[in-house]
């Protein structure tokens, strides 16, 4: 059951260019959180700028605290990233269905800030390996404290890890896995979905969509799936890759 609480920021640090890790004291959110779920967050000041909360994946939950990784892409994320230790954030969650139980060895594929929900998955499921792609080294989140899962890194410019993308990383080792979880830009997810289909490996993808309510009440965040429109916030954000009509997503006039 989700709750809406005011949570104090207990730790905040920059972990990559434009990217912060925020730890929030929010026991009633943390105790129910599962990998793949998210929260709707805003600052606690009574401002209309922004008007709506922002959906942010839960990247970890332990000891009554949740961890968020926020990349600044606009005003809403800037406001979150500029909040400081001791500030309070409004946190509604945990929301969404989260990842399914993995069927054996698990490949986690992250593109960019898509890393956030997969970190939680990596900490949760021991038999997993993370494939993490970024454009360049600066944007790679510091994973030095991630003990629980192994990882391979790729950058488009080769500035760290292999010079390729996350899909290519995955391709090399895909036969070692029985399940794939992926989060990142749509073209990447589409490519992974195709690969998994060919290899007949089940694949769950975490999607993004603009949200208003975040709880399933407004029908604002729908995407077209093979079983009709589904709400990303309530029926997702994690979907079976085979359910997605990728062409619809690719053609989306705006995002």
């Amino acid at each position, binding site marked *: *059951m*989700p*709750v*809406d609480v005011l949570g104090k920021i207990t730790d905040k640090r920059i972990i990559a260019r434009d990217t912060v890790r925020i730890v929030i004291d929010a026991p009633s959110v943390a105790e129910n959180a599962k990998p793949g779920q998210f929260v709707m967050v*805003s600052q606690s000041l*009574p401002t*209309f*700028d*922004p*008007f*709506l*909360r922002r959906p942010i994946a839960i990247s970890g939950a332990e000891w009554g605290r949740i961890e968020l990784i926020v990349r600044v892409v606009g005003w*809403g994320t800037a406001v979150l990233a500029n909040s400081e230790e001791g500030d309070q954030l*409004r946190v*509604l969650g945990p929301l969404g269905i989260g990842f399914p139980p993995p069927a054996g060895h698990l490949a986690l594929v992250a593109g960019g800030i898509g890393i956030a929900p997969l970190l939680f998955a990596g900490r949760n499921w021991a038999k997993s390996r993370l494939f993490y792609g970024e454009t360049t080294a600066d944007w790679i989140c510091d994973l030095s404290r991630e003990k629980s899962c192994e990882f391979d890194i790729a950058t488009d410019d080769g500035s760290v890890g292999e010079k390729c993308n996350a899909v290519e990383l995955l391709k090399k080792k895909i036969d070692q896995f029985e399940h794939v979880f992926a989060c990142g830009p749509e073209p990447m997810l589409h490519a992974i979905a195709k690969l998994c289909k060919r290899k007949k490996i089940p694949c769950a993808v975490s999607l993004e*969509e*603009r*949200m*208003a*309510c*975040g*709880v*399933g*009440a*407004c*029908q*604002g*965040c*729908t*995407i*077209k799936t093979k079983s*009709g*429109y589904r709400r990303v916030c*309530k029926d997702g954000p994690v979907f079976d890759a085979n359910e997605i009509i990728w062409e619809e997503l690719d053609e*989306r*006039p*705006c*995002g």
Partner: protein
Amino acid sequence: MSDLAVNIGNVRLKNPVMVASGCFGVGREYGELFDLSFLGGIVTKTVTLEPREGNLPPRVWETPAGMLNSIGLANPGISAFIETEIPFFRELDCAKIISIAGKNFGEFVEIIKKIDALDCIDAIEINVSCPNVEEGGLAFGTSPETVSGLVSTVRKITEKPLWVKLTPNVTDIAEIGRSAVDAGADALCAINTLSAMEIDIGRRVSRLGNITGGLSGAAIRPVALAKVFALHRALPDVPVVGIGGITEAGDAIAHMLAGASAVQVGSGIFRSPHLPIEVVVGIDQYCEFYDFPRAEDLTGALNIEE
């Protein structure tokens, strides 16, 4: 504690705070967050005769102090609604209002025939003001003749209180309101969203799949207050339900002072799910502080010297 109960015609609300159509489903989701019996009432998402998938995504976009939506009345259709939602809805301990829309008079009649027998429904909100659908929707609500025709048609087939939800996208909202009341409407709800659009200048496309949408939120509060004020002035004896831009208790009080007998909270809920309850508490505190024994005394209590 003041007496918070208000009457909208024959419908008694335990307090003046309802949630607006389309922002709350039937309460399933937000019911996980708080006790729905604190609410004065719940207005369902608008239900149509046939199921509707809704509009092409993206369907929501944030704007300065507000938001656009073009949901397009996505709903399962009245039969499925009765089957799957009413069993949940009927158990709730607050006023229950069903919002309905049709492509033509006949559809409205058919829907009402299906819901008239449902004891649990306290009132019917006729949505003639949705800017996001091609047929029916806004086109209905902009013509006094159509509104009058529609209301008198449905008035004949149900005894249930009929509330008509008005659009602000008209020259004279009081004229439309009057035509609804003269034809038998029990109350007027104002306002639905303002027709609006936003543009992604990088890709040179609309921010919404449906090109245009409806503006709601704090940004429209001043417009909503002016419309409620205009309705109350023109039709002082008709109950008005104030909707638009309520994001704190003070906004609801402003609606009531402008002439509303009750309010509906819409997109403000997305910012703050507990908002409807905060508004109930805030109205109570206001009544105490300013010595209003009854919340209903707030209606139209604006001092105007002209």
